[in-house]
């Protein structure tokens, strides 16, 4: 990651998936702290709280209770202060409809969570490699 002091916001409700992401990040030696929130509503509350550290990347699950990923994107991309934070969707859904809606809402990437943990680590490695090179708005 370009800014190793800024947190990665992980919007994900499945406990094992959270463990998987954290472990994969550790294995790929990503030092950024991970802030985990369980749904879109909580994520918005965090992002709009002036006390919170602004994340360098949001990893977003689609299927979540209360406010799902797509609904979260709709609100977030309307918010001038939040819309520039890069969002990478990290989900099980390979449905064209979800992929289309996500890109319509300006996501920076869309990754399917592989069932195989080793492949999951590769996905995280790729995300980290890309966001280490890519410029990010402050």
């Amino acid at each position, binding site marked *: 990651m370009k800014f190793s002091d800024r947190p990665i916001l992980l919007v994900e409700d*499945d406990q*094992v*998936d959270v*463990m*998987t992401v954290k*472990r994969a990040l550790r294995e790929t030696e990503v030092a950024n702290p991970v802030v985990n929130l369980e749904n879109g509503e909580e994520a918005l509350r965090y992002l709009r709280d002036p006390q919170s550290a602004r994340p360098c990347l949001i990893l977003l699950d689609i*299927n979540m209770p209360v406010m799902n990923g797509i609904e979260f994107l709709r609100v977030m991309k309307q918010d001038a202060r939040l819309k520039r934070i890069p969002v990478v969707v990290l*989900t*099980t*859904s*390979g*449905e*064209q409809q979800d992929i289309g809606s996500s890109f319509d809402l300006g996501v920076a990437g869309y990754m399917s*969570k*592989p*069932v*195989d*943990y*080793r492949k*999951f680590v590769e996905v995280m490695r790729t995300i980290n490699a890309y966001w280490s090179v890519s410029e990010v708005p402050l």
Partner: protein
Amino acid sequence: MYSIQNQSLLLKSPALILLIVCLSVFVSEAVVMLLLYSLPQLSLVSDAILDATLLIAIVSPALYYFLFKPLVVHIREREQIEEILHKNEEEQFKVMIRTSLDAFAVTDTDGRILQVNDAYCRMMGYSREELKTMSTADIDVVGATEEKHDVGKLIETGSDRYELHKRRKDGRIQIVEVSSNYSKLNGGRVYSFMRDITERKQAEEQRDRLLREVEGANEELRNFAYVVSHDLKAPLRAISSLADWLATDYADKFDDAGKEQMRLLINRVRRMDGLIDGILQYSRVGREKEAMVRVDLNHLVKEVTDLLAPPANITVTVEGELPTVVTEPTRIQQVFQNLISNAIKYMDKPEGRIRIACSPEGELWKFSVSDNGPGIREQHFGKIFQLFQTLAPRDRVESSGVGLALVKKIVEMYGGQVWIESTVGEGSTFLFTLPRATSIPTQGANA
């Protein structure tokens, strides 16, 4: 001089003059007769002729008897015939209305029932006498149909068609299609033919309901694929990750048997993942529509072969030229990919040969993918195209059992057929057809 000449002519040849007079009378009668036949049958003309004849009879009895009497007889006869015909016609109409399967009623503009046929009585369950004391307001169920029957509109336009709900004597509601005509004779009469369309309406409603149900089921199926992809895969991924961490973090605590069990556990998780992917792939065919484009199958088959990267001992050859077809590229690729990858996967000969060919057959292209692999026994020919059916144990050849089912679904979606010819030990040939109507032959193809 002129009058003298005339006088002399009259004296000289009275016979000739009589002849001329007769002739002219006949000619004029003939003209009148002709006029009579050609003129529209107006009673005014006939009456005028009869009056003229009476006048002529007074003036000249001779002329009446010899010339005009036949005409009078003719007119009288025709009037009689017309009267008979008229009565006959009335009788015919009465018979028609009586025998009609459709109900018929005559009402006045206030809706009072004046006349009905047997079919109407049967339809409403009332006797003729009962009906003649009733009006349409006693029978019609107002507000049941959106289409409102309006007498005013009928009087204005002369005829109308509409649907009505009518209540029978036994209380049953009948849906009726009505065709009405208005005549202003006798102070205004409405003549209506009615047909019972209750059954048709019920059938239509049932069909609509079934359609809605099918649509609902389809929607459910679409959601099912989505649920399968997420809700089944999420716990599966968790099992996979946890098993992987157990095997890594506690490697020193597992003995060989424990490690083997972990390996089997992770392997089964992957297999289940493959099955779920198969279901999703299978359900996407026909659901996710792609644009129909021209696909050069020579290129496509080469791409598919390169992608599959067959081992060095297996050769894949295309015999002759393949056509260019208009189709969904992903789908046709799935067909060739599954057939060729099966041939590679199950190859048991040291020198594997896979041949792809195509020939026109009437309205169809017939494609074939042949191999010199193990072959399949005839009793399995049907089974192999079913979802999740595999012939080799999954531990020996990892297979989801979706490939051939997918091929079958795609080929049949395009209106083709797929089948197999095989000899055990010598190899198999998978054949499928596609309609040529949506394909364009390339140059040099044997079209």
